[in-house]
């Protein structure tokens, strides 16, 4: 059986979470979406620690949509730890943020982000971006082997 392609959405803003889910649904991306509401939750899920200690490790997401401004551990730090962890360092991570500060862009790519998308205010445009994102990371892209 082909492994299910899960999306991990790391987002603390409830409105943004809802809008992202709406945009995914609107584009017929019906994959399972797991939402982590801060950096710690995201890392627990990915590293199989804390609340997710007993989780089946084969259920790795096909892509992580990562906000930068997060409670507890911020997005850049989450990314750094993912890339430092042998088991999950190949995971595709797409930064999805409000910021278009150059410093964030540089830091994001330097830490090994696969893509950087700035959330536009217009939902039409955001929806379009999400459609491309789903198309690429869930259909075109071959996920790295799970270790």
């Amino acid at each position, binding site marked *: 059986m082909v492994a299910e392609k899960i999306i991990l959405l790391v987002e603390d*803003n409830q*409105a*943004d979470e809802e*809008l992202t889910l*709406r945009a995914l649904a609107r584009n017929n991306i019906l994959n399972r979406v797991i939402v982590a509401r801060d950096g710690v939750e995201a890392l627990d899920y990915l590293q199989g620690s804390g609340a997710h200690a007993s989780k089946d490790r084969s259920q790795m997401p096909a892509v992580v949509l990562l906000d*930068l*401004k997060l409670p507890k551990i911020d997005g850049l730090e989450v990314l750094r730890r993912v890339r430092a962890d042998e088991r999950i360092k190949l995971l595709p991570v797409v930064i999805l*943020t*409000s*910021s*278009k*500060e150059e410093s964030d862009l540089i830091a994001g790519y330097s830490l090994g982000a696969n893509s950087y998308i700035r*959330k*536009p*205010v*217009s*939902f*039409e445009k*955001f929806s379009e971006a999400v459609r491309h994102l789903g198309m690429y990371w869930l259909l075109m892209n071959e996920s790295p082997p799970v270790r």
Partner: protein
Amino acid sequence: MKPSVLIVDDSLTVRMDLDGALREAGFDTAQCATLVAAREALAKAAFSLIILDVLLPDGDGLDLLRDIKRSLATASIPVMLLTTETEVQDRVRGIHTGADEYVGKPYDVTYVVSRALEFVRRGQEEVARDANVEVLVVDDSATFREELKSHLETARYRVMTAVSGEEGLRKAADLRPALIVVDGVMPGIDGVTFIRRIRSDVGLRHTPCLLLTASDGGNGEVQALEAGADAYLRKGSDMALILARLAAVQRSAQSTASWGQPTGYLAPKRVLAVDDSATYLQSLADELALERYDTVLARSGQEALDLLAVQPVDAILLDLIMPGLSGEETCRRIKSSPAWRDIPLIILTALDEKEAMLAGINAGADDYITKSGDFEVLKARVRAQLRRKQFEDENRRIREQLISKEMEAAEARAARELAQTRAQLLSDLERKNEELESFSYSVSHDLRAPLRAIEGFSHALREDYEPRLDENAKHYLNRICEAAERMSELIDALLELSRVSRREMHFERVDLSALAQSIVAELRRAQPDRQVEFVVEEGLCAKGDPPLLRVALSNLLGNAWKYTGKREEARIEFGVRTLGTGRTFVIKDNGAGFDMEYVGKLFGAFQRLHTDREFAGTGVGLATVQRIIRRHGGDVWAEGVVDVGSTFFFTLPIVTEG
């Protein structure tokens, strides 16, 4: 080891007299009656001082002096010429040949011994010092510079060079050399001006300067000394002589700079007597000899000036009525020279020369005395003047020391305060920048999130409840979305404005013509249906930060593009004009233009001269342009005529070719 003196004199009396006195003062001595014997003695032993007669049975003492100063082994030995005075010119010649001291016969033995002790003391101080004295050579001729440099280096000086007065001043200030040799004639700042500037700098005031010049004659010399040079040499002079003079200047500078015991009131003095009457001069000399002064007799004002240029004296006696340069004029010249004006000057007058005497006093003389009076009064007057000079010197020395200490302290204080203020400002600035940075970050990130929600959920409402919404409700929802979009644009524009103020600039040469072409190409791609003629002058270049200049040009060209939107035949020009002193870049369009009455509002943030209905915009673009241009040290302004067009002018640092 005792210091040793070589005495070269053909008179046995003189030799015995000096020998006895010097031995008593703690010297070893050697005596020679001829040049040949002196050369032999010099080849065999080292001496701390040479006392040399000029007229010797087998030749001219000056020849030996020249050889001594030319040979590396002996150049540093001080030489005191001791000779029967015939002419002032002999004295001048002797000192020019390299003599460190010149004493006329009949001499005063205590004077000679005192000078000998002084030379030996200086010599010891010199040995105790670091041998690598730093010399700055300022000359525009590379050949001469290199020649002197190699000679100086052989003599163990450390040499730095400058090719112009300007460079010399910079290097002198930075490197603080111990000695300066400067060429008199140079393009730009000449030698005399150079020395004046050195003398006006607190830190360099006491640095000895030696002026080299090609010009002959006493005039250049007087000029040089007036400017404050410590010595003066013709460029044609022997290199060895230049070196000897340099060493002598350095020696004397050291003894003054060290503020050692100043020459006391009781120390021997040198008096210059100037009179055209040989008879009177002789009797004056005889009387002054009783006072143990070294007396120099000058027959004219010119001779007196020549002598002063090479040898300092402690007092001057000056006849007023003389052929040639008058006493009055001589007095005026002496008193107008910074180097000489403090020397006490007593004018000698006949009883019936009241007018002349007044003129002399007016010309700056310190005292006067009638020639017919008895010499006791004259000697008393001279003593009084010497005493006065002594006190003044001491006072001045103390004052100068105090002032220089105070100035140093003030300078140090000022420098410290400046450094503190600067550090404080810098840290304030850094802190403010950091605050601004985090503020902008929050604006960029947090202000947009609610906007996204407003827009997104309005959108959702319209989409999900389409059948149940009437046209009015849809219209309101559209308005909400538009407002959110607009606010998002404003946030972006504001961030851009703050970014151009914060961005660190890296100046490079920027091809503005190419930049403008690429911006217009982008505009054409965004609105392919528009027909706009764009004319750009080739090769417009400026110095600036490329990303910032792109933002500025994008705004200006974007405006021109936008405001020509309603023109059938839109035209935008980009070129350069020479206005006033510099080049001014010009961007001209035939668009909507503006009313000059409101030109003052043009560059203010959020100021607009058109409604959004006419032309959309944030009102931040030109404020951004102005900030960028001003950060480059340029300026931007505009002219407009409603319905005819706008012209924007801006200046930038120009690229200097090559």
